[in-house]
Structure formats: structure tokens, C-alpha cells
């Protein structure tokens, strides 16, 4: 039994990189696209179980700040969901002025977002004051 599990895990790791070259901007999910050596009916349950075991979740890749034409700071958050399950979460952004102090605003509330399994996600937050120069963001589970 142990050997069989080891064999499956080996197949998963060995097969990485053996897939054919695809359009990276288009995500074709299981049950729609063709099975591959890496992602098929045999390897998928093992990969999902392993992902759940190590507790994979979302990763924030970058936070881009830019000032829009109206003079407000915009925060663009880009990330990806490493797990196989859809991750639902909440985020709250607080805006900071030049002195590093929090700007009081009704827009700093817990907002909802979600990312499908093994997919990128992005969202945008707009500062409601032109005095905002920086931000801080917190996340929590979407109960």
C-alpha cells in the first residue's frame, strides 16, 4: 500500500514539466479539458489530498499602487490560489496618510473575495481621500 502511494506521488512529481505547451492565460478545468500525464483521474485525488494535507491556500503575489486620473490611490492586489478548492475570504484595507496615520473612512470594511482552485485572482480597492499615500491590508475567513 505504502509502495503504491509512493508510486503515485513519484508519478505526480516526475510528470511535472511533461505537459504540452498551452495558452497560460486560459484555464481549462478538470472535466472539460483533456487529462494529461500530470493531471488525470489517478493523480488528481493524490494531488488534492496532498494539497489539503499541507494546507495550501491563497498567496498574494503583488500589491500595485497607482494614483488614478481623479487623484485617488488605487490598490491592485494580484495573487493565486494554490489549493484545489475555491477559497473564500474577506479583506479589509486601511489607508494611511503621509504621517502614517490611518484615514478614517466608511469604505474600510470587510469586503468579500474568492479565488477558484489553482487559479489567479485580483481585486482593486480605491482610497476615498486624495491624502492617502500608503495602505495596510488584513484578511480573514469568509464565514
Amino acid at each position: 500500500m505504502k509502495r503504491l502511494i509512493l508510486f503515485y506521488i513519484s508519478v505526480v512529481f516526475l510528470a511535472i514539466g511533461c505537459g504540452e505547451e498551452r495558452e497560460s492565460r486560459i484555464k481549462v478545468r478538470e472535466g472539460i479539458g483533456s487529462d494529461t500525464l500530470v493531471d488525470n483521474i489517478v493523480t488528481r485525488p493524490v494531488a488534492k489530498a496532498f494539497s489539503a494535507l499541507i494546507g495550501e491556500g491563497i498567496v498574494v503575489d503583488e500589491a500595485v499602487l497607482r494614483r488614478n486620473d481623479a487623484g485617488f490611490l488605487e490598490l491592485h492586489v494580484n495573487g493565486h490560489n494554490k489549493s484545489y478548492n475555491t477559497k473564500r475570504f474577506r479583506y479589509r484595507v486601511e489607508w494611511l496618510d503621509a504621517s502614517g496615520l490611518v484615514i478614517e473612512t466608511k469604505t474600510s470594511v470587510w469586503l468579500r473575495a474568492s479565488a477558484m482552485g489553482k487559479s489567479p485572482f485580483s481585486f482593486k480597492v480605491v482610497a476615498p481621500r486624495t491624502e492617502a499615500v500608503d495602505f495596510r491590508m488584513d484578511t480573514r475567513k469568509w464565514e
Partner: protein
Amino acid sequence: MKARTLHIIALLSILFTGCGEETTNIDVVHDEGKPVMALDYRDFDQAASALVQSLLGSGSLKKKDGGRYVVATGRIVNDTMQRIDTDQLMAKIEEELLNSGQAVMSSAVGSGTDKLIHETRELRDSEEFDQSTVAARGTLIAPELSISGKIFQRNIRYDKKRQQVEYYFQLKLSDAKTGLRFWQKEIIVGKRGSNKSVAW
């Protein structure tokens, strides 16, 4: 025997007093309470935040000469099954628009009208008032933009035990002079829960 029973009942009553659900204050910033089928303050917070961010981000309130637009709040229709004071949504939005530095809100016309503004103008011919302190004719500023909108609800039977309730928050910004619409946004808040829950 009777006295003993009465004693037991009295003792149990005393013991159970205080075992009920105690009242707690809600942490309105980091509320971890369960969602409810009806609209609660968290839904209004979320909708208002998303609407304000969209409006400010659109640049529709940026005046070319750098001044501030005069904005009036028009009619916000409540087409839900709940008794909602639409100010629960608009007060937050108006506050943020004022604080943004790009708009001033009108209290002279629209749903945010302050009656006293018009009442003080009725004092023009009163001998009781120093006429130099009474607002002169032609001093009110007409709004350049108006905000109007609607909140409506749809109840859908999801399966035998559950229902789906969809709330739509719609807001639009129009030029009062030309009638042209510069911005509009819809936010959907969806809830799925027991058929026994009442969404009104």
C-alpha cells in the same frame, strides 16, 4: 408534599434565571457573527463601500477646473420586503463623497432637504427678524449632479428546504442640467438559507 414541590419549582426558577442568552454588544468593525437572511448593517457597509469606491474611481466627480460638484440626493426607492430607511445606505455614501473633497451635498433640494433652509426664507417679511440676517433671494445653489437609485429584492426557492434571496443595490449619477448619466453601478448581495428564515 405540596410544599416540597413548590420549593423545587421555586429553586429551579431561581437557578434558570441567568441561564438565558445574555445580551452582548456587536463589534461593528470586526463582527464575526453569522450572516442573516435579511439585510443587516454589514450588507449596507459592504454595498456602500463598493459603490463609493466605484464612483470615486470612475473620475465622474473630478471637475476640470478643480472645484467641487454640487450633488443632490434624489429618490432612493426601497423595493424590498423590508422596512428600510434608505438613509442607511445614502448617509454613508454622502459622508464619503463630502470627505473626498470632490463634491458638496445639497440640503436645499432632494431627499436630503433640510426644511429649515426654506423656513428661514419665510422670515423675509417678518418684523421680528433683522432682515440683514435673513437669506436673500437667489442665494441657494442648484445642484449640478443628482444621485438616485433603488434597492430591490428577489426571493427564489432554491430547493425543498432552502431559499435564495438576492438584494440588488443600484445607484446612478446624472447631470442635472443635461440629464446625461455619467456613472452607474449595481452591487448584488446574495443569501441562501432555510425556508423558515424570514427575509422581511
